[in-house]
């Protein structure tokens, strides 16, 4: 209990503190913040729906691309749900890898996206927004998304979503049609991931095929592993990965990949993944 309160206070401090610091720290914090929103979106899909996506960079990256090509296209970003959702036909066990492979495929494909003579491996320039403003927007969105997920998760509706996660046949036996609940859950998660992608593009003012790279597709999984599947600690986990990799990269090349390797190996031992698994 005490630990969880401490974590919440720490997260709040991490959210507020950068407002008073210099541009560089704010950029780092903003980057960690968007990735925290990204992690929260992933965590909802994994916790409440039981689908662990290793290709969550699909909604993240596609929305970032749409936003960069034309900011008005951002309204289409919730449609990215229909890129990720069809992969659920592979079943819960294969879904992580199907989504991972699909995100890698999009990574390659993104090198070929050319629009009005721009793009390709160079990527697109995204509308850049004032850092202070976007930082405040990101903080608001993170808090709102946590609230939203908390609210949905604890409602009767959320209970049905969780029921579908645990056993679709049992859900049918008590009259719950699983499809709409699944689509709804995917839509919530993908929309949040899309928002994170758009914020990411707006912060760096540029979108390149790198948004589909394993760095992003595996990020939420790794952050959630560090946070042991709890929402607040996973936010802290995102900050940890971002800060550690920025600060340690000059000493250990691509430090984040070392963190990734450790987190993936640990995650396969600890039970923090695909929770519906634990039942049967």
């Amino acid at each position: 209990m005490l630990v969880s309160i401490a974590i919440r206070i720490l997260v709040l401090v991490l959210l507020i503190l950068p407002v008073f610091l210099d541009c560089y720290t704010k950029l780092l914090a903003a980057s960690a913040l968007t990735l925290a929103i990204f992690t929260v979106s992933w965590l909802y899909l994994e916790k409440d729906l039981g689908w662990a996506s290793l290709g969550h960079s699909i909604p993240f990256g596609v929305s970032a691309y749409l936003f960069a090509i034309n900011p008005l296209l951002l309204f289409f970003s919730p449609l990215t749900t229909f890129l990720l959702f069809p992969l659920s036909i592979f079943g819960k066990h294969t879904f992580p890898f199907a989504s991972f492979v699909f995100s890698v495929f999009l990574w390659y494909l993104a090198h070929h996206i050319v629009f009005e003579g721009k793009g390709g491996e160079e990527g697109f320039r995204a509308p850049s927004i004032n850092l202070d403003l976007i930082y405040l927007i990101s903080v608001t969105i993170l808090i709102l998304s946590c609230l939203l997920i908390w609210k949905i998760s604890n409602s009767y509706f959320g209970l049905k979503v969780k029921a579908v996660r645990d056993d679709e046949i049992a859900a049918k036996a008590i009259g719950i049609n699983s499809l709409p609940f699944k689509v709804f859950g995917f839509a919530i998660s993908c929309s949040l991931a899309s928002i994170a992608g758009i914020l990411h593009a707006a912060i760096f003012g540029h979108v390149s095929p790198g948004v589909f790279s394993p760095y992003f597709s595996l990020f939420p999984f790794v952050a959630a592993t560090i946070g042991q599947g709890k929402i607040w600690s996973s936010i802290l986990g995102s900050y940890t990965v971002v800060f550690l990799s920025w600060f340690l990269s000059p000493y250990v090349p691509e430090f984040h990949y070392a963190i990734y390797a450790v987190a993936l190996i640990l995650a396969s031992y600890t039970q923090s993944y695909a929770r519906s698994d634990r039942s049967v």
Partner: protein
Amino acid sequence: MLEVIEVSKMFGRNVVLKNVTFSLKNGILGIYGANGSGKTTLLKIISGFEKPSCGRVFFNGREITNKAPQEIVKLGVAMAFQIPRVFWNLTVHENVLLAARETDYTAEICKELNLEDVLFKKAKEISQGKVKLLQLAMCFALKPKLALLDEPFASLDAENVEVVLEFLKKRGSEISMIITAHRTKILKTIASQMLEIRGGKIVGSS
């Protein structure tokens, strides 16, 4: 209330049910037969979890053959599986609440089925016998007109068999039931009508 007409089911070349026909007005119908005689398949066909190869099923005059299970449930036919299918990561209370939709009724059923002591434990944390009770609780929490109970006494200890028997007798007056079992002894104490099924065919009734 329920009419099953000429229902057959094949898995590949394997015939599991062959021209099964029977009807139920009300009361409790017991179906008995050896393992693999087709009892479970029959219940699954009625509840919509399996599609019959041919034949038709009517409930209260409406055809329910090939309807999705969740639609059949809404018409008032609930099913309790032999191997319990519950929501393992939700608490017992949440499990029953999902079916009952109201807290008071949830509490009532849980009390009747002796689930009160594990009300706020997750389904995966309770014993197998309690899970079996939970499955029944969920089935009846739906307030069905017809309950299909697949081997409700299997893997229960004597004490829990008593609890279930008591419960079924009490509800039997208002809800029709089809209960399957491979032993007839307990079945005879509550069933008003009995069917024997062998090799996918109905061979006798009493």
